[in-house]
């Protein structure tokens, strides 16, 4: 009886590892292939018999995308837009998340739902009027304008995610500080913010990754080199120059490198906030 139970457990464990290994391969296999492609000479990509492991390795593709396609400019634009987006979200969203987490007031639930419903608006429905409005005030093709547009769908996410982190910071310490004569503002800045620091970082990284990756708004709201971000640049290169696959793969690897690094660093905290925010919503 015990013997068969143990055997069943071993079989279940083997099955679990098999499922996990297969799914992991499905998930990162394409990325590994892209990486291998980025290291191949063009002649080794376009061959009669497929080279699974590159026979010779080159970094020419990386040099090419960096020096010949205006890629540094695209990356710089993306960095600026991402930085501006995160700044706006942190500056305004932190205060809102704190208010939602700590105060009961009239209209609180409705307002929080309102922040959530905003996420249901079709991107196209937002982009067209945003384009018209921004053309009117001269913000089309500006990095600040793009950051403002990103705020439309990232700020609500940020508020919901951060509220979850504020909720889990114990209220007692805050009350203690208030008894010791601290103001509400003082208690928030000195006690609650440090407690929710990891959550603040994770939420900001999530927003940063989303802004760094965004494609549709950037495609529509940028028209020239001045503010074009890397996803748009990469997409346009495919059409215009018939870029060889190796160079394109190198561009892809370079662009997702920051995402992978950031995700790896704050992965655990970010996943917590994301699930809490999504499920409660």
């Amino acid at each position, binding site marked *: 009886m015990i013997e068969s139970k143990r055997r069943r457990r071993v079989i279940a464990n083997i099955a679990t590892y098999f499922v996990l290994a297969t799914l992991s391969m499905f*998930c*990162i296999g394409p990325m590994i292939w892209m990486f291998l492609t980025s290291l191949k000479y063009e002649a080794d990509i376009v061959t009669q018999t497929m080279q699974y492991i590159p026979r010779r390795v080159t970094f020419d593709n990386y040099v090419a995308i960096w020096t010949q396609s205006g890629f540094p400019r695209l990356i710089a634009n993306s960095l600026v837009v991402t930085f501006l987006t995160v700044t706006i979200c942190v500056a305004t969203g932190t205060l809102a998340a704190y208010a939602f987490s700590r105060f009961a*007031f009239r209209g609180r639930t409705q307002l929080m739902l309102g922040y959530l419903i905003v996420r249901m608006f079709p991107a*196209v429905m937002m982009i067209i*009027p945003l384009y018209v*409005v921004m053309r009117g005030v001269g913000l089309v093709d500006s990095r600040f304008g793009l950051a403002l547009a990103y*705020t439309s769908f990232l700020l609500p996410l940020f508020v919901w995610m951060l509220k979850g982190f504020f909720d889990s910071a114990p209220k007692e310490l805050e009350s203690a500080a208030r008894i010791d004569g601290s103001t509400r503002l003082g208690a928030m800045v000195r006690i609650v913010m440090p407690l929710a620091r990891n959550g603040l970082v994770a939420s900001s990284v999530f927003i940063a990754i989303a802004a760094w990756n965004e494609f549709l708004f950037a495609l529509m709201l940028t028209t020239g080199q001045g503010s074009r971000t890397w996803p748009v640049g990469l997409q346009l290169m495919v059409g215009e120059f018939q870029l060889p696959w190796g160079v394109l793969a190198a561009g892809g690897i370079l*662009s997702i490198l920051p*995402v992978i690094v950031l995700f790896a660093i704050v992965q655990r905290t970010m996943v917590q906030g994301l699930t809490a925010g999504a499920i409660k919503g």
Partner: protein
Amino acid sequence: MRALGELSETRYWMYLLLLPSLVMILLVIAYPTLYGMAISFREMRLTRPGLGGWVGFKHYAAMWSDPVFWIALKNTVVWVTAAVVLELALGLLAATALNRDLPGTKIFAVLILLPYFLPNVVAGHMWALLLDPRLGVINDLLVRAGVLQTYKAWFADPNTALAATVLVEAWHGFPFFALLLLAGLKSIPEDLYKAAAVDGAGVSAQLRLITLPMLKTVIAAAVILRVIGLVNSPDLLLILTGGGPGDATQVLSLYAFQTAYKEFNFGYASALSVVMFVILMIFATAYIRLSRITKGDGDD
């Protein structure tokens, strides 16, 4: 600072905290949304600035007799349903396996979640390379395995284009389901299963009587969020197929986008996206109500 501190003691403090974000949201969302709805009742073509003015329901009437709209509507339903079902199945499989907490599952969890954080642009081109009719490694593997005779142009064949894009979308989106379902599974108390085992419930009975009912809310939330995301975002299809071949992969969001961006017909594009928005709202309301009813506690 001191004045702010004093201000924070007043009863208006929370409203002051909310003000900055509220202003932002009204500015970048509420105003454009209302403006967008207004555009859908107007003639607005960037290529012909002379045209203008209110046209009432003209765009909505035009939609009724526009064959591409109906194809796009049908494709949207097929595409979103197929993708969500596949993602839910894969996500459930991944979450169940990860929930067993064997040594090493943390590393697997990171690997499995990663695709969700990759941009559509890279995901699209990566899969275009994998499925390429000349250089694609997947074609090579399938030919070697004897499944295919020759390499296949998956995205160029109207019979396989939609399925191929669903595969890419599933790769990109299933980690989201895995993430939420795993959180749901972790919140089920172990005692429930122990009690069920004592009462003689087998594995399938436990799944049917404990796991699925406990996961119902999470599944509902995940499905709604994903459906909204998929209906609204044309990114992946724009990159992979541009709606082609023919209209085989044309969906509503992409059609609206192309109407705006290629033809600069903002009025019609706005009308298309308003219709999309209304359909989504009806779906979300109905779905929330249904998933509450099936919960069986009749609290509605």
